């Protein structure tokens, strides 16, 4: 979107990176920081309250909590890690999923309206400081130092000389790219999604306030798109949370796998 100069002389400056750098609310605390803490409170409260008195035959709230827990446990952790080893990783995968999910959904919740994961620091913390150490740790523990390096960089089945090519690529991927792309994937999706919503919302506002009368109704179109995009965002936010947890489980599963 270029710079739009209209008759009134008011210029429309499209939303950009600056909209993701929010002024501190108090001290050095910014909105995303508050949201992250809020997400911890929400997820903890949800699970602690619903799991307080679990019954074999679930109540409505227990059923909801069980569905989420089941999703993290069976659909993600067990599928990716394998039914032999997945048990110890269930809390980690469930936490990753719910934490990212709630922080993503903040992006479309009125008043909050900011996806925490659009600040690169948060996904980076999860991917590089949590998932990355965990999957390499369990890999080294399972296969031994040399064994794991070989396991990770030299997939069996390739003819000899190919390893000269494959091993560095695999190494680069496993030890450098995976955690970074894991973080950037969710960050970029949230960043772009929030930006799109801002463009349509602020663009509509600008058109309504400053455009010539003939162009003012167009703002309705812009807002309609903003609403449609909100639904799309909701889907993407859930999807990204799922992918984040899925890939984390996948890395752990690959590190633990006996065969490549």
């Amino acid at each position: 979107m270029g710079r739009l100069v209209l008759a009134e002389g008011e210029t429309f400056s499209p939303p950009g990176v600056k909209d993701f750098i929010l002024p501190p609310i108090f001290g050095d605390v910014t909105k995303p920081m508050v949201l992250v803490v809020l997400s911890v409170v929400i997820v903890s409260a949800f699970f602690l309250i619903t799991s307080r008195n679990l019954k074999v035959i679930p109540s409505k709230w227990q059923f909801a909590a069980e569905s989420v827990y089941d999703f993290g446990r069976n659909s993600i952790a067990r599928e990716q890690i394998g039914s032999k080893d997945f048990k110890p990783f269930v809390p980690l995968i469930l936490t990753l999923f719910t934490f990212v999910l709630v922080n993503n959904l903040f992006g479309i919740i009125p008043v909050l309206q900011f996806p925490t994961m659009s600040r690169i620091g948060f996904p980076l913390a999860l991917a590089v400081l949590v998932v990355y150490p965990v999957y390499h740790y369990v890999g080294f523990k399972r296969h031994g130092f040399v064994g794991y390096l070989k396991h990770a960089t030299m997939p069996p089945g390739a003819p000899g000389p190919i390893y000269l090519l494959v091993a560095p690529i695999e190494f680069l991927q496993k030890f450098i790219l995976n955690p970074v792309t894991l973080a950037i994937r969710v960050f970029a999706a949230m960043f772009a999604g929030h930006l799109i919503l801002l463009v349509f919302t602020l663009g509509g506002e600008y058109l309504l306030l400053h455009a010539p009368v003939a162009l003012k109704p167009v703002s309705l179109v812009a807002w309609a798109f903003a609403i449609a995009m909100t639904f799309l965002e909701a889907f993407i936010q859930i999807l990204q949370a799922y992918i984040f947890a899925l890939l984390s489980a996948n890395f752990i599963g690959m590190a633990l796998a006996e065969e490549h």
Partner: protein
Amino acid sequence: MVNTSILAAETPSPVMPHLAEVILGLVAFLLLLFVISKFVAPRFEKLYAERTAKIEGGIEKAERAQAEAEAALQQYKAQLAEARAESARIRDDARAEAEQIKEELRAQAQEESARIVAQGQAQLAAQRAQIVAELRADLGRHAVELASRVVGESLEDEARRRGTVDRFLAELDSVSAPAKS
């Protein structure tokens, strides 16, 4: 919106992480991970174990009940067959017993009739013997009397008289016995 141009000038790259956010994100995540792994996951896992146990227990119980029912049915069938055999046996026994009783009664009746007949015969024999004895005595006396009248002489000698009579009677017996039998 007014001071955006000022901010835009010093806008940092969005992919440069803020250290504070990284640390906060990590701490917040670890806190949540602690809560979930310490409290939430164990509760759910316990519930799952309980549920599995309950379902397995239920299946086991149903299987046991079915086996019990099967056993009871077999037992009842066996008992029924036994009862049938027993009743048949009792019927047979009763029939045999009735037969036996009938036989016994018949034997008893025959015996009784034989006894009665024998008794009658004995009585008859006794009466006959008595009558014969009486007759013999009478006959002796009358004969003697008749003879004494005929002869006209009294047979004073007792011994001689008895001998004569006896001899006569013996002759009479020997004559009448073959004729009678």
